């Protein structure tokens, strides 16, 4: 029942905001997201993986077609739900003092997005999963279209068509599996699992690509990434945060929940190719990032690089990779949020995001600089930061999978330093390139947003165990199933 609350509550608030349009919509939205966070924390406290039945909820939705409104949580879902419910309040809070105040519709859309995301992370029915998957796309498209920068119209449209194209092939793959289920057919995840695992290697390979395409576009993996830098750049700050902080995790979640256990032989057959694509993405995006002049665009490319490593880790289908991916998803969400927020703070105060026209901001904004450096060090995975735990596990998994790929993937840390540190140096240290461009330091409001993030970066970095524990049982179970069914190959 609590899961149902997590899905319906943001929806209810969003509708309320749209219909009643209160003057202080942002406060209402923020309060709503806090309640959501509290409920999800309550779930974390009570959560035991053993009594799984407690964490599912099912009612018939379209019984004649075997479609149920079936949601449930295991440790993996819980971590991602926690990321969603935890990050949305921060995203809302960060928008409070921005110069462009947004209307009630904006906050309604953000909450709708939250509902769809929680839905994606908990759906246990193929059809429901697809519906939530698409529903997440609509609000973010409009957030970017209405509140985005100059060239938003064509850019956001490209984003929409790209992701829609991917998900239509996912729908086709799911439909094909649906008709493999016995009797009157069913979209239930276990029925689909069973049907998928009985297919031949060739068929599983086709399903693999149908699903992988959708997930790869969402993350995005090279060469399906072309929508991403433009969209991240023109989207309003909150939109970028939602996209990179939470939405791209839908792709990984898809890999973990809807690909590995569904077509184990397909993964066995094609996983290596997919990992190579991911690793190419790491190197490619890092090199492109080095040459970026716009800091927001630089972070966008950095995101592609990090995403490549996570996807490679998941596809190794090892416990290390999976756990590393989960922790890295959380860490990446937090750090991406912080980076985009800092980027927005700097660019609204100095009216530019071009790295070379900034400089020497440290003298006028020491606290901002300190926080900025912590976030950057977290992003390039310095020990004792959250980024380190995830990347370490992921690289370890990749090494065990294949030495060469591991070595190439390891470049992500080095290249991360290569593109982030000089940018930081240029913007914050050294001479002030544009005289008179001193900026004010963090306001109290901004400190309230950023301090908890810094604390989280360190807490997760030093003591990641609690998070790892949440997902451990689920990951072990999943891999056990995976190895049983992928070992069946002749």
């Amino acid at each position, binding site marked *: 029942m609590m899961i149902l609350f997590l899905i319906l509550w943001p929806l209810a608030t969003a509708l309320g905001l749209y219909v009643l349009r209160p003057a202080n919509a942002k406060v209402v939205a923020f309060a709503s997201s806090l309640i959501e966070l509290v409920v999800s924390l309550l779930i974390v406290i009570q959560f035991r993986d053993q009594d799984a039945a407690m964490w599912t909820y099912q009612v018939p939705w379209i019984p004649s077609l075997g479609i149920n409104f079936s949601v449930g949580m295991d440790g993996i879902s819980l971590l991602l739900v926690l990321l969603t419910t935890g990050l949305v309040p921060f995203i809302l809070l960060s928008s409070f003092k921005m110069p462009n105040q947004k209307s009630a519709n904006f906050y309604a859309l953000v909450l709708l997005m939250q509902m769809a995301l929680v839905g994606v992370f908990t759906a246990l029915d193929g059809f429901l999963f697809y519906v939530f998957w*698409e529903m997440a796309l609509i609000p973010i498209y409009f957030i970017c279209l209405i509140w985005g920068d100059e060239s938003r*119209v064509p850019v956001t449209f490209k984003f*929409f068509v790209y992701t*829609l194209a991917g998900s239509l*092939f996912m*729908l086709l793959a799911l*439909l094909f599996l649906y008709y493999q289920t016995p009797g009157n057919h069913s979209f239930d995840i276990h029925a689909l699992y069973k049907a998928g695992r009985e297919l031949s290697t060739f068929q599983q390979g086709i399903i693999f690509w149908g699903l992988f395409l959708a997930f790869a576009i969402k993350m995005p993996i090279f060469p399906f990434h072309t929508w991403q830098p433009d969209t991240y750049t023109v989207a309003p700050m909150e939109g970028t945060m939602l996209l990179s902080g939470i939405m791209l995790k839908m792709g990984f979640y898809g890999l973990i929940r809807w690909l590995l256990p569904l077509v184990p032989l397909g993964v066995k057959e094609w996983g290596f190719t997919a990992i190579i694509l991911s690793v190419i993405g790491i190197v490619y995006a890092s090199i492109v990032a080095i040459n970026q002049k716009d800091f927001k665009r630089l972070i966008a490319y950095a995101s592609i690089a990090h995403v490549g490593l996570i996807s490679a880790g998941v596809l190794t289908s090892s416990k290390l990779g999976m756990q590393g991916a989960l922790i890295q998803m959380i860490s990446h969400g937090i750090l991406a949020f912080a980076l985009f927020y800092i980027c927005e703070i700097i660019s609204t105060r100095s009216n530019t995001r071009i790295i070379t026209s900034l400089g020497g901001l440290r003298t006028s904004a020491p606290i901002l600089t300190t926080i900025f450096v912590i976030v950057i060090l977290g992003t390039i995975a310095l020990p004792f930061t959250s980024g380190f735990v995830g990347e370490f596990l992921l690289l370890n998994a990749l090494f065990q999978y294949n030495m060469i790929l591991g070595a190439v993937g390891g470049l992500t840390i080095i290249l991360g330093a290569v593109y982030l540190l000089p940018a930081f140096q240029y913007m914050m240290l050294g001479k002030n390139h544009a005289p008179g461009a001193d900026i004010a330091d963090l306001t109290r409001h901004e400190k309230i947003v950023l301090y908890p993030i810094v604390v989280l970066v360190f807490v997760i970095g030093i003591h990641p165990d609690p998070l790892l524990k949440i997902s451990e049982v689920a990951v072990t179970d999943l891999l056990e199933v995976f190895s049983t069914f992928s070992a069946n190959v002749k």
Partner: protein
Amino acid sequence: MNALLIVCGLGFISLLSEILNFKKGLHAIVIAGLIAAALMVVRDWNSAAHYFNDMLIFDQFAIAFSCLIMAVAAAWFCLAPSYFIGDSHQTDRTALIAFTIVGGIMMVSFNNMAILFLGIEILSISLYVLAGSNKESFFSNEAAFKYFIMGSFATGFLLMGIALVYGATGSFDIARITEYLAAHSDELPGFFYVGLFLMLIGIAFKISVVPFHFWAPDVYAGSPTLITAFMSTVVKIAAVGAFYKIFAQCFLPVQASFTSTVIVIITLTLLVANITAVYQNNVKRMLAYSSVAQVGYILLGLISDSAKFEGPLLYYLTSYATTSLVAFGVLYMIESAKGSSSLEVFAGLYTKNPFAAICMTIALLSLAGIPPFAGFFAKYSVLSMAVDGNYIEMVILAIITSLIGVYYYFKPIMAMFGQRSDDRLYFSPGQKLIIGALTLLIILMGLFPDSLISVMG
């Protein structure tokens, strides 16, 4: 049957109201009459009623579809008071619309080729006049003329086809024809197939599928917008219903002989209509092509499994009609305020009138097949049946063309939200109410599709 009489009566009442001078209440009378007629039909749900020596049969299919026709017509009347008010032709127009509905009901309840023909003609002749009802507009006259010429041509094909089928099977009666075909499927004369294909061409004209669609964009764009809305909802339901009754029920025993032709028609319809729609700068014209394209998806479901398609067909048509009413309704209001239906008038609608923009967006998203709106589930059920029927390549084609569809459906959305505008646009509360209610229906139907699909058992 009673419904048929009531709607006929409504037509005569509207003609009399000119003489007896009670034009003021006419609009309300018609709406009430339609609702009453619909309720009357539903009462017979569990017992199929036969009339005139089985020439008309009100079975569940006929009841469901004639109810849908009347309900949509009633909603259309609520949306369209301005088409009737302030004009000296109120009564003629109301009567013509009522007779169109009569024709529509006959087209979904016939059990005899003669009734089919009568239904199509009653519907078409009224429509020819309605298409030209904006007498001062050059385009409206053109539309009426074009529609009339093309329509009568198609009728000729249909009639010739019926005659040949009669010659081969010895009956006008649908049930008897089916029986005969089932019993003699391998000894049918060649001219039976000629008749069948002539009928296919005739009805394909009426449901406007490629390559028999040439009249549709011009007629849709030239007619008064509200009449276009009527044509793409009520008339479409009736025509598709007739197509289903003929080709999925009557000619079911010989389905193999025309399946490949229908597949060619579907392929052409999906490709040509969707691609041409991309190049339209006039939203009305774009919606016309979109309406052609939608029939392509419907036919895909029909060839996949005609027996199981009744429920999804009803759902598809209901969702399409609801969505079209919203889209055309908003378009009409903008058009009457701005005097144009080109894409430019949509620029910045979100700042001008957020309510209209959001309703229009939901309608367009539904047409494009984006969940959770009704249009998504309609398309989904068609694709699902096609996957089941092993038409995988058609499914991939349908997916690609619906991506093309996203391109043109999003043009107005991008204009509405992507640009900003300073002036405002006001809708009357009545318009807001009906458009809002229909939009809500799109969402509800998308969320609870089972309630409608399972109606057809």
